[in-house]
């Protein structure tokens, strides 16, 4: 492909690609962002629901234990519970229902341990200074934060007060937090999700899955966590990007935290995105390939057409050159023909003068004779060349001028007069003198006459007759050229105007003369016809319109 076309192809390809692919990408991106937005909303919603559920469950767990102790405290008397064996019985009853109480104690208003069931020797402990004791005495109910205690197992304390003035007492129980840790951890999502509880200082109340142990600081800035359930995107101190749901427990200042790895959460979305990208990539490739193919095809076609047009233009230019060449050739032929006729005549005269006596008497007589013959031979050659040159004039656009047909005819005849003489052909001219002058092309008309005269001369035997006539007929001037040659056989009469049709031997005629004459007369608005009687001769008529 040529550089210009390659550049055109590049530009077309680029434009088509932009026009085709830009909307595709825009729609693709739009769809992706729309659905990923929806997906994210949904994930957040699910996370918040989960946080709510877990929070409720834990709340329920605490409430259940608190209310069991409350019921026990309200419905029992200090005396009944501090009787030997009574507290053990209650403790056994409680734990039979799997309430996960580790121990149970009764403490009076002064902080003294009245009764205790449990694995630790706490009977003599005085709690009057303990914060939880004061809190319980003040509010009636207390739930502590988680602590590890002596055994290193996470647990916490629930205490309720039996109000009776100065005789008030407290029922205190330690609760294994294992169960509720499990409850919290069941909210851990996927492979990288986490869920845990932190207290109001931000310390873990249940062990997190990653990044810390129970009671460690979680690093969560609690000041910015609102009271309602909410889902935020956050980045931890370690730089982990998380989607987190926060839910405060209603009765205890514990914060339920559920972390989710957004990459994991958005897994299906990512798959969809990859799928979309793949489809987009594939269609882009397909579109690009088709565009490139089509553009190349089109440009190649264009180039071909251009090339064809250029070839056609070149041919036109060639025809143009032929026409000017024709004009020149016709002029040159005319110029050459006259001196040529003189040379021929004079050579003929000399030839006649060099008779046998002269040839024999003169030392170069034979040479003279031979060279004269050669001169005549070459004159003939030049004459045939000029005739052929005249043939070039035929394709010119007619150059119209006012002219006398008789004059053109006699001029044409003058070219052949000598040949006629040599052949001993008698030529009779019967030209009407009252002919109007005609607007037509001299060179082309002359060409027609020359062709007809040439044919007629070739057709007749030595000593034959030619008759040239002209007359005026209805709206036209007619010139006829008649010979008394063998005529045109009937089976050939259809073909005489065919190009390359000739009755002459090889090398004698091109078969173009009549064909060319025919097309010239058509162009000049006239026509050419003939009559022929086999063995008697043929007559060709040239009809030239007067207007």
């Amino acid at each position, binding site marked *: 492909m040529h550089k210009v076309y390659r550049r055109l192809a590049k530009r077309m390809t680029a434009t088509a690609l932009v026009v085709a692919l830009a909307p595709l990408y825009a729609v693709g991106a739009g769809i992706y962002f729309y659905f990923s937005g929806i997906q994210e909303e949904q994930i957040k919603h699910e996370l918040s629901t989960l946080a709510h559920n877990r929070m409720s469950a834990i709340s329920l767990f605490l409430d259940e234990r608190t209310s069991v102790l409350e019921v026990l405290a309200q419905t029992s008397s200090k005396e009944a519970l501090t009787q030997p064996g009574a507290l053990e019985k209650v403790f056994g009853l409680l734990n039979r229902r799997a309430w996960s109480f580790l121990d149970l104690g009764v403490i009076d208003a002064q902080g003294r341990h009245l009764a205790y069931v449990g694995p630790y020797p706490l009977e003599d402990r005085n709690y009057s200074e303990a914060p939880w004791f004061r809190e319980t005495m003040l509010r009636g109910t207390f739930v502590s934060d988680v602590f590890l205690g002596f055994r290193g197992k996470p647990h916490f304390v629930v205490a309720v007060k039996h109000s009776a003035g100065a005789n008030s007492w407290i029922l205190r129980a330690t609760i294994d937090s294992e169960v509720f840790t499990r409850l919290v951890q069941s909210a851990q999502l996927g492979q990288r999700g986490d869920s845990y509880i932190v207290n109001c200082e931000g310390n873990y109340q249940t062990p997190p899955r990653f990044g810390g142990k129970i009671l460690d600081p979680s690093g969560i800035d609690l000041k910015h966590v609102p009271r309602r359930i909410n889902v935020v995107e956050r980045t931890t101190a370690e730089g982990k990007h998380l989607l987190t749901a926060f839910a405060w427990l209603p009765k205890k200042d514990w914060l339920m935290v559920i972390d989710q790895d957004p990459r994991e959460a958005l897994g299906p979305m990512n798959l969809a995105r990859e799928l979309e990208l793949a489809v987009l990539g594939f269609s882009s490739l397909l579109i690009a390939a088709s565009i490139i193919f089509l553009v190349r095809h089109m440009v190649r076609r264009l180039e*071909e*057409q251009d090339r064809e047009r250029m070839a056609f233009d070149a*041919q036109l230019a060639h025809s143009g050159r032929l026409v000017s060449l024709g004009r020149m050739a016709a002029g040159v032929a005319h110029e050459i023909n006259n001196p040529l006729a003189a040379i021929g005549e004079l050579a003929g005269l000399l030839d006649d003068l060099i008779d046998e006596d002269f040839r024999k008497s003169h030392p170069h007589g034979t040479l003279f004779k031979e060279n004269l013959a050669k001169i005549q031979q070459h004159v003939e050659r030049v004459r045939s060349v000029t005739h052929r040159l005249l043939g070039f004039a035929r394709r010119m656009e007619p150059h119209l001028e006012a002219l006398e047909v008789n004059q053109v005819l006699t001029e044409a005849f003058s070219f052949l007069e000598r040949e006629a003489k040599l052949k001993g052909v008698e030529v009779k001219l019967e030209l009407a003198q009252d002919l109007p002058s005609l607007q037509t092309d001299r060179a082309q008309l002359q060409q027609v006459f020359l062709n007809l005269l040439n044919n007629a001369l070739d057709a007749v035997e030595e000593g034959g007759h030619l008759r040239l006539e002209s007359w005026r007929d209805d709206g036209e001037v007619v010139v006829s050229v008649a010979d008394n040659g063998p005529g045109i056989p009937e089976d050939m009469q259809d*073909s005489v105007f065919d*190009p*390359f*049709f000739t009755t002459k031997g090889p090398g004698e005629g091109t078969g*173009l003369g009549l064909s060319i004459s025919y097309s010239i007369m058509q162009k000049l608005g006239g026509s050419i016809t003939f009559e022929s009687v086999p063995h008697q001769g043929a007559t060709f008529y040239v009809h030239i319109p007067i207007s």
Partner: protein
Amino acid sequence: MILSIGVLLVDDQRDFTEMLGLRLQEEGHRVSAAFSGEHALQALERGHETVDVVVLDLKMPGLDGEETLKAIKERWPQLEVILLTGHGSIDTAVTCLKAGAFDYLLKPAYFSELLAKLGKARRLKWEREERMRMAEAKLGGRRSGGLM
């Protein structure tokens, strides 16, 4: 020795056709010409015996090259046809090759190329005619054998 080939030139561009014809004549070939598809068929009607190869332009007003080719191949299957075509009608040229044309030449045609293709086409025509003659002779021989 150059054997004379009967060539029918069919092209609406007279200049081109005549010049080509003259040059072929100078090479010793027998030339006839027609300036349209219709004329070509008429000319063949009158004298297809003298024609060996038809040189046919694809783009012509009236009956175009393709139709002319089909008409020629239908009536005178023994004639070889060489197509003249511009760049734009190469597709058509290929269709025409399938329709029985011998070969094609790109216009503007190189004369030597045309001469070479003409020679090949004529040779092919002769070979085919020879084969047919032999086949007929065999057939005839068998027939007469049967009569005996």
